[in-house]
């Protein structure tokens, strides 16, 4: 495995704003997949969803997976969060094998999935309720996170009173509130309009830099992948397998101008070639 373009968090601007607690120096930090595959059993026989995958995501890395729909990306995400057991192979998070939901992840789906009967603040506090953590301590953290994403003053609003982009920002706060090491994002901005989406990309990059989380993001958009990622994993069509893993040579911090960089366009072009022979991305 080729190491990524060194995504160290400490020497980056804004590192002093990190909301993470300092990590214990455990064995093999990050996420390791070895021989992980998934086959669904259905009435018509076994349906392979993922071919055996081997890769490692470094701690604090921004790792993006692109692939056609139905290539098992969401399955991958569920397995890392511990909701789904792999058919073969092992998943290690910080050296510990994942067998059941371990709560060390924050998840953001395509839809914000805020509970309509809870106000924004109490939606953000959902993981705290589920994990039975002390509410008072985390209330301050939740408010700080809402401030970080620019939702200060909206704590008492109900989800439907917010725009789609604001709802998605609240759901990012919810994914961060319990201070997980990993953020899993399944096409988080897929439901947003193009302009909001670009804005959210910049914002997400800032949040990731300030919190130092390991991010695994799944997307259909190749430019989005290249723009955000330290490394991009390209997947093949179902059953999903690794087509390639690319290092993104763009320097950080990046802005929307980075998209004009020749290195950016070249990498986008190269990744796009993977899908030429396959059916179009959707």
């Amino acid at each position, binding site marked *: 495995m080729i190491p990524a373009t060194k995504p160290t968090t400490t020497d980056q601007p804004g590192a002093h704003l990190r909301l993470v607690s300092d990590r214990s120096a455990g064995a093999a930090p990050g996420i390791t997949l070895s021989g992980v595959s998934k086959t669904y059993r259905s009435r018509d026989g076994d349906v392979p969803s993922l071919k055996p995958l081997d890769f490692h995501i470094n701690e604090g890395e921004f790792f993006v997976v692109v692939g056609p729909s139905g290539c098992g990306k969401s399955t991958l995400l569920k397995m890392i969060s*511990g909701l789904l057991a792999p058919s073969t192979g092992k998943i290690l998070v910080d050296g510990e094998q994942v067998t059941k939901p371990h*709560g060390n992840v924050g998840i953001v*789906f395509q*839809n914000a*999935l805020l*509970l309509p009967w809870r106000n924004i603040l109490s939606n953000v506090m959902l993981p705290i*309720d*589920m994990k039975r953590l002390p509410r008072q301590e985390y209330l301050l953290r939740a408010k700080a996170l809402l401030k970080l994403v620019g939702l200060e003053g909206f704590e008492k609003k*109900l989800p439907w009173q917010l725009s789609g982009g604001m709802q998605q920002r609240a759901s990012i706060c919810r994914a961060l509130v*319990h201070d997980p090491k990993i953020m899993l994002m399944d096409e988080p901005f897929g439901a947003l309009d193009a302009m909001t989406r670009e804005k959210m990309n910049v914002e997400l990059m800032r949040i990731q830099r300030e919190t130092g989380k390991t991010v695994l993001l799944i997307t259909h958009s190749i430019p989005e992948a290249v723009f955000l990622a330290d490394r991009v994993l390209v997947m093949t069509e179902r059953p999903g397998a690794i087509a390639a893993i690319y290092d993104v040579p763009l320097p950080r911090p990046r802005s929307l101008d980075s998209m004009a960089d020749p290195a950016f366009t070249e990498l986008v072009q190269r990744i796009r070639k993977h899908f030429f022979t396959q059916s179009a991305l959707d």
Partner: protein
Amino acid sequence: MAEAKAPSIVSRALNAAWLRPFLFLIFIVVAWDLAIRLFRIPAYQIPSPGDVLAVLWTDWPELLRQAWPTTYATICGFALSALFGIPVAMLIAGSKTVESYVYPLLVFSQSVPKIAIAPLFVVWFGFGIIPKVISAFLLGFFPVVVSAVQGFKSVDPDMVDLARAMQGSRFQVFRAVNLPHAMPAIFSGLKVSVTLAVVGAVVGEFVGSNSGIGYVLQRSIGTFDLPTMFAALVILALLGVVLFWIVDRIEKLVIPWHVSQREDIIFAS
């Protein structure tokens, strides 16, 4: 309302939402009275509104006394529907096995006409309140189950996954996600159920009872006392409306966040 124009009290009253059904009701009553006069419908076929009102006026204490057992049976039957219907729906929605065993039978049981088996309850439980309650329960039960099952099943699986990934226990996730999500559907079932429970109670009174509005109905048909019969129908309708309204109020309290209630929130804030 345009405050600047300062509309007269009369026009403002006429525009009040709660008044509209009453205006429409008055229209219907007038049309009813006119139809009887115009087409010379004999009183033994359809009584005139005046006669019905007269009965309502003079027999008011007696009708109220008879309305009580019906109300009581309705509320008991409705409460049982909710008490059993919601947990049964939880089981059906929660387990494919339970669903495959129970749901088809439940649907099948609904095809059995309750009126046909109501006499059976009289045989089993006598002429008291119990046959009425059971009859009200049997009619009110099904809509609660069907709506609640649909409510529990329509939860976004991603939402449940999200809560589970945060290490929420099954019960925690159910209480935080599934149950509140199913509430609007449960209430729509309860609203149908409460009006059907009235019907069920009356059916129970038809087949074997010596009290209640159903009993009044049957007796007045037997003696061709149509004004009394219509008065009894009015009382039944009122009972249904009041019970429905109570459930509706409770719904507004329990799920103020729901789409159907949002206007109230905007006005309140």
